[in-house]
């Protein structure tokens, strides 16, 4: 941690062109992929509460860190609540990996604590509305102004491209899972029309990637998977999946609220809801997560990521099979 403080101090001193002292360094959360470290930066005039998001190595990045910083700034400039990025570097010598620094926003992020706060304050509908509005604003950004290096999965209909990815992932299952195959078949038979315009999509907006305070939604986090050329309904549908409801099953929007306040906010933000496409992406997201859990179990078994948590993911596949089956009920 001493090295980290020195690296951050050196970077910010150069960036701000005055001596900066780092205090109160504390790992706030260490995901498998990247570390978030909270700290205060004292520039002699002001103390700035910041967070450093550090990727252990550039090799595991989805987006280059500069593109992630740029898409966050772009979204923020369009009224999406995102903590302001105050600096970034892809030079691994500062802190041992690519990183960006952003303002530290207070509030709850852990899902159960978010949902408890929302209940205590009675702000579930408000947060869902704000979230819808934030997403509507994100999806209204002209794709032509997307950061040049932002992930672009290529031309073609987003749904067809996404389906091809799932078909490939199905091939890596260690045992046949007929329920997942039935889901895949449903997706093939119900391919939706392409969106009128493809947009920038975040790809992981859910309870757990939000900062919520007593006054409502404060920030949308974790932009590492953002990309261009997406169907905005992919983001919207991801937010409606049962796995982000944390037992509040009757509140479709991340356990926060039902659909109406979210949809209203989405429209106010400039988003265009499309039921058929949303439905398709909801089935897609459920199957994708089921295959993701299966891949975690496989990673444990083949030794690439030995972990009891990854092993346990294999026993969570039936949850996704259940959700999938409920979504594709015949004659519905």
């Amino acid at each position, binding site marked *: 941690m001493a090295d980290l403080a020195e690296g951050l101090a050196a970077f910010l001193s150069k960036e701000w062109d005055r001596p900066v002292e780092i205090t109160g360094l504390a790992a706030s959360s260490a995901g498998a992929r990247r570390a978030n470290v909270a700290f205060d930066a004292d520039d002699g005039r002001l103390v700035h509460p910041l967070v450093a998001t550090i990727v252990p190595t550039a090799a595991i990045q989805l987006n280059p860190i500069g593109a992630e910083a740029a898409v966050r700034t772009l979204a923020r400039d369009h009224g999406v609540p995102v903590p302001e990025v105050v600096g970034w570097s892809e030079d691994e010598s500062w802190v041992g990996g690519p990183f960006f620094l952003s303002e530290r926003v207070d509030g709850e992020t852990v899902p159960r604590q978010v949902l408890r706060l929302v209940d205590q304050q009675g702000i579930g509908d408000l947060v869902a509305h704000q979230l819808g509005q934030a997403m509507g604003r994100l999806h209204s950004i002209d794709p032509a102004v997307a950061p040049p290096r932002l992930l672009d999965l290529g031309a073609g209909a987003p749904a067809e491209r996404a389906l091809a990815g799932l078909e490939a992932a199905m091939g890596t299952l260690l045992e046949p899972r007929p329920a997942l195959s039935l889901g895949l078949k449903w997706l093939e038979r119900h391919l939706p029309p392409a969106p009128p315009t493809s947009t920038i999509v975040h790809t992981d907006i859910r309870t757990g990637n939000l900062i919520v305070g007593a006054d409502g939604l404060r920030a949308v986090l974790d932009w590492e998977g953002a990309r261009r050329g997406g169907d905005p309904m992919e983001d919207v549908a991801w937010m409606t999946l049962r796995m982000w409801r944390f037992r509040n099953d009757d509140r479709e929007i991340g356990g926060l609220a039902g659909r109406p306040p979210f949809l209203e906010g989405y429209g106010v933000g400039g988003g265009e809801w499309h039921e058929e496409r949303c439905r398709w992406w909801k089935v897609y997201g459920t199957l994708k997560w089921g295959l993701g859990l299966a891949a975690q179990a496989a990673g444990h078994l083949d030794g690439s990521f030995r972990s009891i948590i990854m092993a346990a993911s294999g026993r969570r596949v039936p949850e996704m099979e*259940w959700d999938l089956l409920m979504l594709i009920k015949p004659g519905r």
Partner: protein
Amino acid sequence: MKYRPTDEELLDAIAELLENQVLGAIPPALQHQVRVAANLSRILQRQTALEPAASRAEAGRLAALLEMGGEDLPALRAELDRRIRAGDGALDEAAVWAALVATARDDLASAKPGYDAWEGE
């Protein structure tokens, strides 16, 4: 021929140890993993009791659906999977769905009791 404790009783003992003694004595960074391990012991404990009957029921359902013999469950699953993927028009879609729902319910009875109470979207 095993003596007591039974498999279930041993899995219960492992879960109890992890939940009641180990969890309070280890650094916070390890607690999530140990909770997950304790939960896996509970899953296996339930599965030990439930799986034999669940497997027989699944084999019976799939054999009826596929008009095959009902001995070899992995082969039945693989055949159903193959026919679903092939888009076999002879399969009764509603019957396939119902059979898979029943299997998912049985899997969840071990892995996550109560998860199937919500039948909405």
